[in-house]
């Protein structure tokens, strides 16, 4: 019997260890795995690479990871902390504690999709003539200059959805899906916190992510209510 339900956050994050790469779903507050992020500093995970559209989410919900210098590299389309003063990740970027692979958001999303889809690299016109693709291989297609972008994969993906079933099938409310839909396929171990694990199995029209991409699901209340 296929049963991807886990009962505790410890079980959900089991195996998360040194030197790993973790992807984080979520955008604009929707689909952000706040409960799992908050639990990260309590794991032995160190020397981490984080892949998150915005580094700020990690500052918001797993600040101790930065304080304890456990994040060494970030891949993101935004690495700006809240407010006018420097945030901890900005300070660490400046002093070299943290390194950054900054990408246009579309290239960021496509690199994740490629990672889950077995596509090691692709060309895109985005970023050409800007400093963010300096050093990347350039090549012209149909008269348009493009750059080579490589796939992103991870050891873990942490994300939030609205509903799941024991197969790991996921249903999103509203715009919860965003990056998580592709991140689910790009990691070896995808862990999803959900509002509700349904009895039985989700009906076909409600399945936004097939369970094959998901390893563990855990029912946890909306951390924004706390």
């Amino acid at each position, binding site marked *: 019997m296929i049963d991807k339900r886990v009962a505790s956050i410890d079980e959900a994050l089991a195996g998360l260890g040194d030197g790993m790469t973790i992807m984080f779903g979520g*955008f*604009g507050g929707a689909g952000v795995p706040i409960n799992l992020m908050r639990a990260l500093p309590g794991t032995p995970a160190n020397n981490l690479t984080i892949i998150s559209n915005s580094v700020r989410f990690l500052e918001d919900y797993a600040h101790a990871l930065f304080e304890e210098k456990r994040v060494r590299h970030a891949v993101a389309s935004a690495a700006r902390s809240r407010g006018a003063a*420097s945030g901890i990740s900005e300070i660490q970027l400046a002093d070299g504690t943290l390194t950054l692979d*900054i990408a246009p958001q579309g290239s960021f999303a496509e690199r994740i999709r490629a990672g889950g889809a077995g596509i090691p690299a692709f060309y895109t016109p985005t970023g050409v003539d*800007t400093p963010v693709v300096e050093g990347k291989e350039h090549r012209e297609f149909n008269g348009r200059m493009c750059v080579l972008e490589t796939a992103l994969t991870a050891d873990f993906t942490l994300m939030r959805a609205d509903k799941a079933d024991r197969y790991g099938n996921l249903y999103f409310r509203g715009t*919860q899906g965003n990056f998580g839909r592709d991140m689910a396929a790009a990691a070896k171990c995808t862990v999803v916190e959900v509002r509700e694990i349904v009895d039985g199995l989700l009906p076909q029209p409600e399945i936004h992510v097939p369970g094959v991409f998901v390893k563990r699901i855990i029912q946890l209340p909306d951390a924004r209510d706390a």
Partner: protein
Amino acid sequence: MSYKALSRNQIAWRAAQDLEDGMVVNLGLGMPVLCANYRPEGREVLLQSENGVLGVGPVATPEQEDRDLTDAGSQLITLIPGASIFSSSDSFAMIRGGHIDVTLLGGFEVAANGDLANWDADMPGKGPLIGGAMDLAVGAKEVRIMMQHNTRDGSPRLLEKCNYKLTAPSCVTRVYTDLAVVDVTADGFVVREILDGLSRDELQAKTGAKLTFAPDCGVLKTPAV
């Protein structure tokens, strides 16, 4: 003569008048999202948001608020009938693939060849933020910029060459400022509309590149918005 520069809402009103029936439009953060409020009656303009929505409706009222339904600016939104939702990669496939008719974006600088700089203002101590701007600038069929004509210290933002790091080269087709509507053409900047009370020489003096004035150059409207 004296003049009163347009407010942000007036710039947004002006930019919104150019959105045609049936267009698919992505509105950037800041001034551009204000355009949603000024879409001319009777036109169906579909708003795309790069977090994965086509058919963004008005910002949610307190009763409508749903924290799981946001736009790319993290505003809580509503959907219009016929709206669809999709993943970030599908959203940028839509953008990069040339399926967005117009994107309206904020800008720091625009060059006479259409180069755009709007993502990195070299803020000391602050990290970079690209977001969707580069993909929108490269992928949308038309890139229109909304910005103040000058910086706070009076420096021009319409330039021969951008000083800030580029977002994308040769992409801008039109710029809406608080003083004028300026097209980017093969011959450089062409003024389409200028504020009443502002002379052509004064506008040129506030601009960092040569301006040509269209033969039918008109008066920039100042609606009470």
